[in-house]
């Protein structure tokens, strides 16, 4: 093994206080970027959770609908035309919308209704941990998520409340279906959803289009598009992407998260650059000695870059540990931080780039070393 790594590590660990300061800077930076990007990914997953869990191949949505929560309505006459298209197995209406939930205590809270015909499937509650989703076909029944119990004044199966003045009973409880807004999702049957949202019987918010097994998706998509006027036909991927784009970038939330991440990168780079520069300055005499002995500039750059890389590796490992704890802590929160393998890989690369870029100042300083100075001391 080359002595450059030994020299780099000894230079690094020699001044422990500075080394700790450098690590704090890197860890702060990486954790900040990790959290911001984890929030970005988590938010992206949250805003498309209904789309992700819908059992459908295509979505017919009102023209210009920006997201799943868009309250615009479709004329249900479309349903027959879509259902009659070759390759289409079913066109399932979906009714969504805001409503009012009155607790037994009389307190009111807004809720977001999600209703599809249970016989057709389409979009049903998932992760049911208590009760039975099939029971939603009965009039006045709802499914709620256990994370909203307190908010909704619910204690479990059989709890009651009122929606738009009508008595409802909890018959199914889910786990982990959380809304990225403060408004809880309430799953009901299609008919009940119309009642609670005031949607007329000849209207729906979306049509979930399921294709026949083995049907050519592209062909059917084009055929359905030809049948539909005044509405849009999107694949699940297109609708997911549109929904994420609206919530993340249309609202500025994504830009804010990216700005935070950028700030993290800048802070990290500045801290590492400053400490590397000061470490290099402290070891200038050694670098001048190396130069006097005839070492190439490249050899000295390697020592500095190894220092930067060691900083990066150690800092990233610590930051990853903190990231794992943060992920655990936020897993059940309203906005869980999602850290994927890709994000970790990107962060590792970013950490290395940040630390190596930070070495530029130190390298520029070393380039100016005059080896003759070792004879003056």
């Amino acid at each position, binding site marked *: 093994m080359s002595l450059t790594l*030994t020299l780099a590590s000894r230079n690094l660990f020699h001044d422990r206080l500075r080394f700790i300061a450098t690590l704090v800077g890197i860890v702060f930076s990486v954790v900040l970027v990790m959290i911001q990007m984890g929030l970005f990914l988590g938010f992206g997953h949250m805003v498309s959770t209904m789309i992700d869990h819908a059992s459908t191949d295509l979505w017919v949505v009102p023209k210009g609908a920006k997201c799943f929560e868009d309250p615009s309505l479709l004329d249900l006459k479309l349903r027959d035309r879509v259902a009659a298209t070759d390759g289409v197995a079913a066109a399932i209406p979906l009714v969504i919308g805001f409503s009012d939930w009155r607790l037994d205590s009389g307190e009111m809270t807004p809720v977001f209704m999600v209703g599809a015909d249970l016989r057709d499937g389409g979009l049903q509650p998932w992760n049911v941990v208590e009760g039975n989703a099939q029971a939603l076909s009965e009039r006045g029944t709802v499914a709620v998520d256990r994370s909203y119990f307190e908010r909704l004044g619910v204690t479990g199966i059989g709890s009651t409340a009122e929606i738009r003045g009508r008595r409802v009973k909890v018959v199914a409880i889910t786990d982990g279906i959380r809304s990225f807004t403060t408004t809880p999702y309430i799953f009901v049957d299609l008919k009940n959803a119309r009642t609670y949202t005031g949607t007329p019987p000849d209207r729906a918010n979306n049509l979930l289009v399921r294709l026949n097994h083995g049907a050519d998706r592209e062909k059917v998509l084009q055929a359905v598009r030809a049948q539909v006027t005044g509405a849009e036909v999107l694949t699940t991927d297109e609708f997911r992407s549109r929904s994420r784009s609206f919530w993340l970038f249309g609202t500025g939330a994504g830009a804010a998260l990216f700005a935070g991440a950028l700030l993290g990168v800048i802070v990290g780079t500045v801290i590492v650059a400053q400490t590397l520069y000061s470490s290099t300055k402290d070891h200038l005499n050694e670098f001048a000695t*190396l130069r006097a*002995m005839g070492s*190439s500039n490249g050899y000295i750059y390697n020592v500095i870059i190894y220092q930067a890389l060691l900083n990066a590796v150690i800092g990233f490992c610590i930051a990853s540990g903190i990231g794992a704890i943060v992920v655990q802590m936020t897993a059940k929160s309203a906005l869980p931080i999602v850290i994927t393998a890709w994000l970790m890989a990107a962060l590792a690369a970013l950490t290395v780039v940040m630390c190596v870029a930070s070495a530029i100042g130190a390298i520029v300083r070393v380039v100016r070393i005059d*080896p003759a100075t070792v*004879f003056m001391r």
Partner: protein
Amino acid sequence: MKDFIIEAKEIKKMLGSGAGQVKALRGVDLSLRRGELTLLMGPSGSGKTTLLLILGCMLAPSAGRVSVCGTPTADADKEGLAKIRRDHIGFVFQSYHLFPTLTAAQNVQLALDIRGERGRGAAEKARQALKMVGLEQKTDALPRELSGGEQQRVAIARAIVANPSAVLADEPTAALDGSNGRTIMQILASIAHERGSAVLVVTHDPRVVPFADRIVHIEDGRLVDDPSDGPERVRMPKAAAFGT
């Protein structure tokens, strides 16, 4: 035929600029021969160190020519000069300039590492170099665990481990007591006589005189009484050096 390792002809060097400009060297001719220990002596400010820097390819002369092992240095850029130093010259500094975080063996090995020599072969060479300076028992010691004399011996081992054609030493005994100074000079003399390197010792320490094969005096940037082609000895018994 002369076996010159470093040749300097008509070397002039101006330091500073404007009204503060100083003529540090005023036309110096000096050649270092294989197997010879040359002393460069002179008072402070006489131009000793400037000449050493020029001979060591760390400073470009204002006028004149330097060649190392037959290679002219005039056209070399900084990296080219570094390569000449790497390939042909070992340095011993007054303040040792060892790397405080590396062991004695690692300090010596560093001189090979910068030449791309690594692994067991390099470790063995470093061990042999330390053995030559009598420090084979201290290979794992850090510089702070060594005496001044021992540190200077490690520095010499570092200078010679790559078997350079020339060793340039700047006041190598200045910070040492008599016993250590004598040891250092004995080692430097053996490097010249047994290994065949050209050794130049810049010094104003008269105790080192008995170890010299040739003594060159410099004053006001000029060599005085420098019969480069003939023996110039101020002989006294080596045993008398360093007060013994």
